[in-house]
């Protein structure tokens, strides 16, 4: 499945761009595909065990994946994965 991944600026500098194309059948596979292509970005997307962090939230289209099966959530062609990191500036 072809999925579009949107990175915030804080992470986009670790990849070629803030908008990336990726492949996989689940969110976890999509993330691993990106992690393999961008080694500097990889540790910011998931922990050493390959699990999501508590301070980086993944949205598949408009829904938080923690409520749909986390990295096991299935994806379909054309889905959009948005990464929302905790930021604190004020």
């Amino acid at each position: 499945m072809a999925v579009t991944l949107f990175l915030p600026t804080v992470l986009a500098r670790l990849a070629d761009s803030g908008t990336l194309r990726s492949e996989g059948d689940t969110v976890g596979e999509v993330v691993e595909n990106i992690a393999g292509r961008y080694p500097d970005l990889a540790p910011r997307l998931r922990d050493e065990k390959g699990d999501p962090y508590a301070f980086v939230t993944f949205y598949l289209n408009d829904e938080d994946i923690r409520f749909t099966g986390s990295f096991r959530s299935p994806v379909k062609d054309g889905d959009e994965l948005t990464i929302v990191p905790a930021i604190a500036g004020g």
Partner: protein
Amino acid sequence: MSTTASVTPELSNEEIFRYSRHLILPEVGLEGQKKLKRARVLLVGVGGLGSPAALYLAAAGVGTLGLVDFDVVDATNLQRQVLHGTSAIGKRKLDSARERIEDLNPNVKVEAHETPLTSRNALEIIGTYDLVVDGTDNFQTRYLVNDACVLLGKPNVYGSIYRFEGQASVFATAEAPCYRCLFREPPPPGLVPSCAEGGVLGVLPGIIGTIQTTEALKLILGIGESLAGRLLLVDALRMNFRTLNLRKDPECPACGTHEIKELIDYEEFCGVRQAAAADAAAQSAVPEITPAQLAARIARGDDFDLIDVREPHEWDIARIPGARLIPLGTVVEALPTLDSARDIVVHCKVGGRSAKAVQQLQASGFRKVWNLAGGITRWSDDVDPSVPKY
């Protein structure tokens, strides 16, 4: 929403004239304007986000504005903190804010709380207000504001910013999720740079702060659809606004399981104290040279290498003559170009990144390496004031 004061205030003829553009909006009207006058709103932080919030809430006629801040106006604030002017540099932000608000709308009562918000005072301070606008600049205060609002049942109008991007939502209303439902835990200290470290487009807090203000006014007036249950993401570079659905996390320790029954130690929770101790230990563990000692070595004509580990855009702003730029992230690949037989002095902006670089060099077998204490900032203070500080 219900406001804490029960007596309906009357509007004077001066107020009716002042608020005429509100009064002729059917969604606001006389009753709405009275609700605004009766409302008590607490702004936590009167910096980037708090500036537009204070200005527009005061202009709108919110009766009482509580302000929590303990900072002093600095020239670097003025690029975005539009509540404060050049004449306020060096003044307490609360004094500057009070003067500006009283000039803008003398009908507004300002309650100044010159203190950091802490676990000891948060419930008492927040408890007397109807809602909170979170304009803080650190994770520990954000979790503190969140938990206090959940415990007290007060809406928390959230906004945060970084570089060109912002987030906004309304947390902790009766049905809405809270900040912990979105981010269960904070990132480890140092992973997410602050605006002071990473920079921020000056107008961005204007965008996000006015969105927070809009949400606060809607909550007071009881109109429209609030951002409760939604997260607004703003990307100023692409000029893209997007809302995502926020769900209440049944396992959230604050608003789900309610296992958080009182405020905790938020510096501990966010790892701030441990990180500060580790940073201090790391910095004290590396050999240091003061700017005055470095100036003396340069004046003597000593033979050594001066390495600047800041980023190229910082190098463009200011540099120490004779330095060579090797950004921290590229030190390892630059190792073959460095001579471990020579003395090496490393500097950055204030000394933190260069301490890390010294440790990297030491780990690679370099023995004659010193960190410039206080970085180029202290160099400007102690040796050469013609070098600009940023």
